[in-house]
């Protein structure tokens, strides 16, 4: 591929990372490039290593080998909080909102500078009007969908250049999936997003580029518009993970 280390074009370049969790070799040379201002989606079956890839970028499971270059700097091996402070927001898959904290406190906690929340509150509450209404409730009183929105909103509080979003549609009702898609679409206007998404319909409508991860390796990459045409590829790598077909009209 000719486009491997063009740092002007790529906000994030993950180069051949190897990640171990305990004894297990989870990622075996994964490479992912994310172009500035785009949405790139990681596809693959359950357990393929998509979530670990995000965690490795974030520094939560540091890689043994390989490089992670963000905004021109090598960030692999740095502590997670330092990586976050480079301007990366992380939305984990399990909706890790803080249950003992109110919605407002959850957002406040994500501030990196004083006033971060004040500056972005309008934008966040416009995107997720529910959160403003629920701002005094504790995390454990929110429904799954509300928690998911809070988890995404939390990543928007500081000035992040890149968002890593893990399975935003997981377990959401169709109407909420639609709202989440709208929100992510709006986010693209201002930030760059690396997405993990099992819902192929949603992924194909949001992302311009894809990387398929299979068994800890990045096996395929390209433009989303090409992948949609390529039924063989979809079946080979994603077959089991494509959810029950939701017609496009239902989503939109």
């Amino acid at each position, binding site marked *: 591929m000719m486009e491997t280390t063009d740092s002007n074009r790529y906000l994030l370049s993950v180069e051949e990372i190897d990640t171990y969790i305990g004894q297990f070799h989870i990622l075996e040379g994964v490479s992912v490039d994310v172009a500035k201002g785009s949405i790139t989606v990681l596809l693959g079956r359950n357990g393929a290593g998509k979530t670990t890839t995000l965690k490795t970028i*974030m520094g*939560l499971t540091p890689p043994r080998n390989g490089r992670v270059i963000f905004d021109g700097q090598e960030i692999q*091996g740095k*502590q*997670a*909080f*330092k990586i*976050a*402070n480079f301007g990366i927001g*992380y939305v*984990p898959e399990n909706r*890790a909102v*803080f*249950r*003992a*904290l109110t919605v407002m*406190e*959850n957002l*406040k*906690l*994500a501030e*990196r500078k004083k006033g971060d929340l004040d500056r972005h509150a309008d934008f966040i509450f416009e995107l997720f009007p529910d959160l403003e209404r629920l701002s005094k409730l504790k995390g454990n009183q929110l429904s799954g969908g509300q928690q998911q929105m809070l988890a995404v909103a*939390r990543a928007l509080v*500081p000035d992040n250049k890149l968002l890593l979003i893990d399975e935003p549609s997981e377990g959401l009702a169709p109407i909420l999936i639609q709202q989440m898609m709208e929100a992510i679409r709006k986010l693209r206007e201002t930030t760059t997003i690396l997405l993990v998404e099992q819902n192929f319909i949603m992924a194909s409508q949001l992302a311009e580029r894809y990387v398929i991860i299979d068994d800890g390796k990045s096996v395929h990459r390209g433009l989303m518009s090409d992948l949609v045409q390529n039924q063989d590829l979809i079946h080979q790598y994603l077959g089991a993970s494509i959810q029950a077909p939701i017609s496009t009209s239902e989503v939109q």
Partner: protein
Amino acid sequence: MSYNSKKLLYSVIGILVVAGVVFGLYTYAGQEAFIRTTLSGLTLGSLFFLVAAGLTLIFGLMDVLNFAHGSMFMIGAYTGWQFYTNPTFIFGVLPLVLAFATTVMLIPVIKPLLVRLDLSEAWQKRLPKLAYIAALLVAVLALVKFDILGLAKTAMVAVTTTSSNPLAELSPQEPLPRFLLRLLLLMLSGAFVALGLSKPGNRTEVSAPEPLKKRLILPVALFVLAIIFTLVRESASEGVLLMNGNLRFALAIIAATLFGFLLGALIEITMIRPLYVRSFFIVLMTLGMSFVMRELVQVLWDPLAYQMVRPPLFAQPGRATTIAEWLMNGSSTISIAGVTFPTYRLFVILLGVVMFVFVTLLMNRSRLGMIIRAGVQDPQMVEALGINVKRVFTLVFALGVALASLGGIGAAPFLPVQPMMGDQYQMQGFITVVIGGMGSYVGAFVGAMILGMARAFGDYFALKLQLSPTIAEASTVIIMIVVLILRPQGLFGKKD
């Protein structure tokens, strides 16, 4: 049933049970005995809370069971007692510690230069080791013939003398030129430690440093303090001893708490931080540390029990009838609804309540508290938000030890100050945490009060019904067992 109505039901049942027990005890024991025993229970409960609050916060956030917590309680008592009775030891050792810390804290200044050095990998490994050996040798050299035991014994003199001249107990410090040499050597030793810790030649540690001015603040401040405290070694002790006794006691509390905080931070950074990945080792390590601390105290002050003199506000013979009268005369006892009760114990109750309010405000109103509450659930996610969780761990550990240390100095004027004094409180602290729920400071407060009451009323019944006095100690364990059966996560614990 919904979550909220269930909660309400439990609260109502809880209040009814408490009210029933209180009413039963009141009618059985009669007003006088009831009030006296309750106040005793609250006194004990306050001390239990000061120990348990730290334990529960540290366990909740970091999953660390600190078995040295009781020793830290004891250290707090010794520090405060020393400061109050005869600070010669403290002021004699302080400049040495400050001098050593000055150069160790130079790390942020020298590290950016050292990591850029061109060193082979072998030397990168060898150099820190050599530096540590050098540091140790220089430190030993610095302390040759330093009469630390002599300094420590000065406070023991205070126990036997009851002269009206407080300065009679002071002993002279070492002559200045020799002491300065020790300071210089210790600074050199600290510099070697800093050299080792800076990982010379390790380029992966390169990161954009903060402005030089900011990095120099701490070492310079420490250096200035070291100089000041060297010059006032003798006059500071005199000054402290000539001070008003109440003020001296207030300063002793601050000194003990501050020392606990710094000690906690030091222990967390140097010994606990490397072990988070092997949490079982932390248990062994803290257990071992508690033995080391106890032995160290025994070496310095002999395995004796000391009685700290109560500060004047609580020491004049006589009984006050109102709080105003007590504060004016400094009476040693006060009459509360006809019951004579020592005033100092009221102060201990106040200390416990004030610290509970402090912890509550800290947890609910400050950013640190928010981080702690979030970190209890998911420290990784807190870190992913860009928060230095390691630093928060250090802070919380230091805070917990400071609270235990505060409990120690709070207890010193009415408990014998001796090397084992913390053991019982650590035990009760753990039981408190189990009853209240791991990680909940409200639980720690409620649990501590329940245990305090159980101890006090246990003693009362043992006396009245001629039971073995150990029934009071056993009662706390029985309560723990009952709670574990009915509500294994503790009264205020969260199911997980």
